[in-house]
């Protein structure tokens, strides 16, 4: 979309199209890009292509405390697992709602699962413990919220008692969760095209 807008703006700046033509072209482009089903074409003939984050698995000493924090601060619903009593899932948006920008029926809502694992616990616990030690870490996680306004978001977070709130460039805020983990919050303006540009 940006490349298209830039091209049309260039044409307008050079007098190749009129103001009216620029306006009409951008109107149509915005409508088409915003229409259901408008997505980047998938790479052909590829089975293993990430379509979306399915979930983020977060380990901490007290999963209930973190889940309650996410529910209080971010209005996230909690989903319990009868077979896994020490974890809670929290979907983005309502359950069964399509993720933003997704039209496919086989790409479900992303979610966070918060866990407190017991090394002597279930088979899944033991499997996790047996993994090799990673030399990579997820230093922070960024979430997208609707209608993001940095000043308003900062005020809301402060009112909720969230710790260590600080600016993250032009488009976002950082904060820490109850266990000190770094979380970033932004709108769609913070994305793979703008971040680090």
């Amino acid at each position, binding site marked *: *979309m*940006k490349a298209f*807008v830039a091209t049309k*703006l260039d044409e307008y700046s050079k007098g190749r199209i009129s103001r009216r033509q*620029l306006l009409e072209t951008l109107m149509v482009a*915005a409508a088409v890009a*915003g229409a259901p089903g408008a*997505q*980047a074409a998938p790479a052909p003939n*590829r*089975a*293993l*292509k*990430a*379509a*979306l*984050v*399915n*979930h*983020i698995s*977060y380990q901490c000493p007290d999963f209930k405390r973190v889940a309650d924090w996410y529910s209080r*601060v*971010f*209005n996230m619903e909690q989903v319990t697992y009868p077979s896994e009593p020490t974890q809670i899932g929290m*979907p*983005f*948006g309502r359950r069964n*709602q399509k*993720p*933003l*920008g*997704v039209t496919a029926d086989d*790409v*479900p*809502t*992303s*979610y966070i699962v918060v866990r407190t694992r017991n090394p002597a616990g279930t088979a899944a616990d033991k499997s996790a413990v047996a*993994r*090799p*030690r*990673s*030399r*990579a*870490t*997820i*230093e922070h*996680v*960024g*979430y*997208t919220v*609707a209608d993001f306004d940095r000043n308003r978001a900062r005020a809301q977070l402060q009112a909720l008692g969230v710790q260590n709130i600080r600016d993250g460039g032009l488009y976002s805020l950082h904060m820490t969760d109850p*266990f*000190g983990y*770094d979380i970033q919050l932004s709108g769609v*303006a*913070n*994305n*793979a*095209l703008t*971040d680090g540009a």
Partner: protein
Amino acid sequence: MERFIDRLIDEFDSGKLSRREFCETMAVATAVLAAGGAAANAAPQSGFTMLGVNHLSYSCPDYRVARDFYASVFGMQTLNDNGRTRANLAFGPAPDNGGNFLVVHNPGNNPPPPTDGYVDHICFTIANWNEPQIKAELAAQGLAGRSRGGNGTMRVLDPFDFDLQFGNHIAENINEP
């Protein structure tokens, strides 16, 4: 929308808005339009309406190794690669309309201190799940020995032994825990 774009053009013409700002504002406005009333306008009186994961900041000894792995194995698109310390790896919907990305980067000068909370793995959704073909692609990438699982959910260790899961909408679905 027409009035909004009209005003943007005015601001561009008068020099109040740069070319870059014009393009970014149009992209955001279009994304908000795409999000529709249900998602973008449904924010409650207080608190936030979460739309999804924006990005994951992935720190590792050599971002180029991670970049090449995620691009070649999971089909991610490399963007804003500075050639020295970091790159974005985009996947999913359009970047400004719900797309996710990994920021793969070398450790900074002031890495964050260890915390009691941490991400121990991430899981990607794979659409149009075709398990035999997936296993064949992993084998072709030399990853057969570093991957395991099946029946709709699998795992693979990345070059830095970070644990990755990937699955289909049947095996990995919050709507059907």
